[in-house]
């Protein structure tokens, strides 16, 4: 079993020191703080939402060794829940986001209890099937508006004072959510909890024999990942003022896998770079519409066959430091 090449490359040991990662984090934060001066802010907000989504997914695969093929259900659930809360119940944005995130966390708990009963390929198939069930639920449920989705979701006033209708106020909120989520994941990975997760990924029977309740750790990682994916989904809905079926469809689950694979599985910054590349690509390829799927498929194949470390993984190998 140990001879099998693991899907995610070994993460850095703590002794490596984190100085270069701190620098890279600072560069990334500075990038997203300054980029709206030159780039279209709505595009950047989309990138940040998907980057957080991808980071949440990466927490599960990169540190838990669990490949979820159904993460769209968390993105979409939080989206629908917060859109409904903001539009129908009139929640202020901060509570709408919290409510949506909580719904995804709950869904993560329920589906996690089922999915972590199997590993590897089965885990991927089960999460995909559960997500498809959730998709059909939203397709039929009356409050989601079916194919139309929930449109014209009000952004409202943050904490009752800050109007989010302006692009800069919204950008600041998305920026804060993204950086907060990113740092939380960073903290989790380097905590004792994260170390146990890595131990389970490397050798589950051994972790079990050392007395760790393996399934509880996996479930916790799964729920945390679902929660952060939900946070991304709820924020995204406020940005676009729209919750739709696209966010719960399996193509979205595939897209986040692609982002993380392209950026680098199990790397800290890979998901962010992967999201940036994929979202930019979709923006530029928008004119040729349906070819996007084909291009995504080609990137999948190339990544799996020749580029398994991803952009950041290769970069990290070049400078001989884990990124």
């Amino acid at each position, binding site marked *: 079993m140990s001879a*099998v*090449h*693991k*899907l995610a490359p070994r993460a850095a040991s703590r002794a490596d020191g984190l100085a270069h990662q701190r620098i890279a984090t600072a560069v990334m934060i500075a990038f997203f703080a300054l980029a709206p001066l030159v780039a279209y802010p709505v595009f950047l907000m989309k990138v940040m939402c998907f980057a957080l989504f991808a980071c949440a997914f990466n927490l599960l695969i990169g540190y838990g060794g669990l*490949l979820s*093929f159904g993460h769209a259900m968390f993105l979409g659930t939080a989206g629908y829940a917060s859109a409904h809360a903001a539009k129908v119940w009139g929640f202020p944005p901060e509570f709408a986001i919290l409510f949506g995130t909580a719904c995804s966390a709950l869904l993560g708990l329920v589906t996690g209890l*089922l999915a972590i*009963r*199997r590993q*590897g*390929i*089965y885990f*991927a*198939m*089960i999460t*995909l*099937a*559960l997500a*498809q*069930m959730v998709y*059909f*639920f939203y*397709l*039929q449920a009356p409050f989601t508006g079916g194919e139309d989705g929930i449109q014209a979701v009000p952004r409202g006033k943050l904490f009752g004072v800050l109007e989010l209708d302006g692009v800069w106020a919204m950008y600041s909120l998305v920026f804060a959510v993204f950086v907060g989520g990113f740092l939380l994941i960073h903290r989790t990975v380097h905590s004792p909890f994260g170390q146990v997760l890595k131990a389970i990924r490397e050798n589950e029977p051994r972790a079990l024999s050392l007395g760790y309740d393996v399934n509880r750790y996996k479930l916790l990682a799964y729920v945390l990942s679902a929660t952060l994916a939900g946070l991304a989904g709820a924020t995204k809905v406020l940005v676009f003022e729209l919750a739709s079926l696209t966010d719960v469809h*399996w193509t979205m689950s*595939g897209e986040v*896998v692609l982002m993380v*694979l392209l950026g680098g599985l199990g790397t800290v910054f890979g998901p962010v770079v992967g999201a940036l590349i994929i979202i930019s690509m979709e923006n530029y390829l928008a004119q040729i519409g*349906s*070819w*996007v*799927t*084909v291009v*995504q*498929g*080609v*990137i*999948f*194949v190339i*990544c*799996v*066959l020749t580029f*398994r470390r991803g952009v950041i993984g290769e970069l990290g190998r070049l400078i001989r430091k884990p990124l």
Partner: protein
Amino acid sequence: MEVFGIPTQALFGQLLIGLINGSFYALLSLGLAVIFGLLNIINFTHGAQYMMGAFCAYFLLTKLGIGYWWALVIAPLAVGFVGMVIERLMLARLYKLDHLYGLLLTFGLALIIQGLFRNEYGTSGIPYPLPQELSGGRNLGFMFLPNYRAWVILASIVVCLATWFAIEKTRLGAYLRAATENPELVQAFGINVPRMITLTYGFGVALAAFAGVMAAPIYQVNPLMGADLIIVVFAVVVIGGMGSIMGSIVTGFALGLIEGLTKVFYPEASNTVIFIIMAIVLMIKPAGLFGTQR
């Protein structure tokens, strides 16, 4: 006549549709199980290959004037051959890596194939005519049975049982089962295991294409006809467990029937019932009904 307040016509009609769906679940999950047994790969391209089978039949008819019966032979061979090329060129490079890479690769291939067909033929679906010999139907007294549907059920049962027989009862099947258990040892006995892997993948893909040709007159030929179907088949595979060939056949037909019954008694849940059963099975017997945990 009524059963539980449901007209028997409607009940048996839905049961028939359930059996038809079950035939396709059984053929597709059987192909997945055969491939998984030897390659340890979940073939995400399976749905796309099912669609390619249907399109192959459509091309044969419109471009070459070759009808349904020959398509039933040629399409599985052609699509199976394409599958073997994919296995040699791509999948063969991944056997030493984590099995999840196989899943990711075949997912990418499915996106490419479905995307290309969709760009060319849209998503509206192209009708494929019923073979003349099987048009019409017969009245069984309690329901009307179209001949073609009876043929689909019969043919898929025969193909499934023949596959089961070939794997469980013949010498070739014994090699296959031995290679599933321990490929190195089988290779040491002088059997060309890599070639066997290629042929097995080709056979599993051919089963999907065969199902595709049979589906063409019923569901029309549509670039996305396999995209959602494959997810249901994954759930079927999880429910049955992939340890047993007979298990995947039985589970396929049974779930088709259950889905048909759900359409009669509680139509709102007919899309989700298989996933709900999957959740229940995972709670009671995580390895699947016929599976062994490994």
